[in-house]
């Protein structure tokens, strides 16, 4: 684990990753356990569908709330808010720590005095971020698959994999934004704060877009638009959405290398 920067970074996070995986699994377990009672509760379904469309759009995934189907239920209870919230916290935190954390702790000087280029360092940190998000996503996917079987939800492993992939890409888009901000400023709180603010703004724009023509007009700017526009549990993956979020993540990593290459490191 100490053979390269990215594996060492993962090693530092081994316990954190374990506990986040447990947390994600617990979320899935709770949702799966409550599913049978929700499914059979017609009052709840009537209540939800009696809500104004504007409110429904805030909680929905793919624009609808449908508690009577497993895909609709998981979409709005898990994928629309809780899962992205948790994964974004991890990804933004890890992205902000990647460069700025080393710089603030004072270990970056020594690290970059070794035969390691700045570009290489950023790329290794980006790979570590990708690996962290992948590990959590895999744990999440596994929990979903097991939970769905236990609760007799008619959703296949493939559909879960597609939805989890979208979740991972969304987390990576914001994680690499935090990485780039940390590489540019050297300050962890700035990087995490700005990236988190961007995520909140993106989420609000996407979820409130149906209420406002202004927001609707800028909805395409929000990464959440590509994440939540279609419910992959119901409709499968859409190539455009995958491409946009992947491109955002790659752009974040590229910006990070340029930003670190150009500046003086703070001591």
């Amino acid at each position: 684990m100490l053979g390269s920067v990215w594996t060492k970074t993962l090693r530092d996070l081994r316990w954190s990753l374990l506990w986040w995986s447990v947390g994600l699994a617990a979320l899935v377990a709770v949702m799966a356990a409550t599913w049978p009672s929700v499914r059979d509760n017609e009052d709840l379904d009537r209540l939800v569908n009696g809500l104004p469309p504007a409110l429904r759009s805030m909680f929905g995934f793919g624009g609808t709330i449908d508690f009577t189907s497993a895909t609709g239920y998981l979409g709005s209870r898990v994928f629309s808010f809780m899962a992205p919230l948790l994964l974004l916290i991890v990804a933004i935190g890890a992205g902000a720590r990647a460069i700025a954390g080393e710089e603030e702790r004072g270990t970056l000087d020594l690290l970059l005095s070794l035969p390691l280029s700045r570009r290489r360092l950023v790329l290794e940190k980006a790979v570590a971020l990708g690996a962290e998000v992948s590990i959590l996503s895999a744990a999440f996917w596994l929990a979903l698959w097991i939970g769905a079987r236990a609760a007799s939800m008619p959703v296949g492993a493939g559909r879960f994999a597609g939805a989890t992939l979208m979740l991972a890409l969304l987390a990576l888009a914001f994680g690499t934004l935090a990485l780039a901000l940390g590489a540019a400023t050297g300050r962890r709180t700035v990087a995490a704060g700005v990236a988190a603010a961007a995520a909140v703004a993106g989420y609000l724009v996407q979820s409130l877009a149906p209420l406002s023509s202004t927001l609707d007009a800028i909805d395409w700017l929000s990464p959440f638009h590509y994440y939540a526009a279609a419910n992959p549990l119901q409709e499968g993956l859409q190539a455009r959405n995958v491409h946009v979020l992947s491109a955002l993540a790659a752009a974040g990593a590229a910006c990070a290398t340029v930003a670190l290459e150009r500046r003086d490191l703070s001591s």
Partner: protein
Amino acid sequence: MEPAIRAVALTKRYGRARGVSGLEFDVRRGEVFGFLGPNGAGKTTTIRLLLDLIRPTGGQLEVLGVEPRAGGPALRRRIGYLPGDLRLYESLTGRELLTYFAALRGADDLGDAPELVERLDVELDRRIGALSRGNRQKVGLVQALMHRPELLILDEPSSGLDPLVQQTFLELMREAAARGATVFLSSHALPEVQEVADRVAVVREGELVLVDSVEALRAKARTRVGVTLAEEPPPGAFALDGVEELRRDGNRVELAVAGEPDALVKLLAAFHVVALESREADLEDVFLGLYGERTTGAR
């Protein structure tokens, strides 16, 4: 062969007053070069320029024949560095840290580390976070030396080391120079480097005040003489050419003597001398003369 380090009008300005300006010096291959100055004089700024951690705003700099930024990882492979404000990964043990750094240097093994660990008596199997400052500094020294670099850049390497380890450290520097390595040694205190350095440069407020051989400096240095007399001497009793009264405490007087002490000895013959001691010319005194104040002596 080109010098190990060549600085020409090297300048680094920050927004504020800090930085260095117009530094001109060469460090020859195989020499131990002391880079001296009070804290905040620009020593660390210069060192971070050498390692491409920061970039100059003016002038030229060559390290082992190449500009640091152009040299990149290939250049840094040939350098060993100990930062002044040493921060290591606290959750790792010393052994893990050395393993990590060896891997990042592309080395198959720990190089000279086992021998260095033995000689410096480093605690390798405790978390670095649990080590004392001196023990962390030793881990830092081992990582700087383990790959037998051509150029050693050490920023205040002695800080936190106890006197015994300090001796071992000086031996290591001599050995490094003996096998052809160049050592760039920064310090705020001259006694730390005068034993090993061939030449020293002195910086003050970002500017180079002097570059000279230690021998030449020593020739300029004054001898410290302390005399204790039976009675308190009258004021101005030792007002001779080349003699300066540094301190007086009742019957005891401390003097700095330049050149031959003959006149002073003859003058002292007139007094009842209870005790007399003289200390070998100390470069600290040259320093004090240069600075005109006790900036470096305050330790």
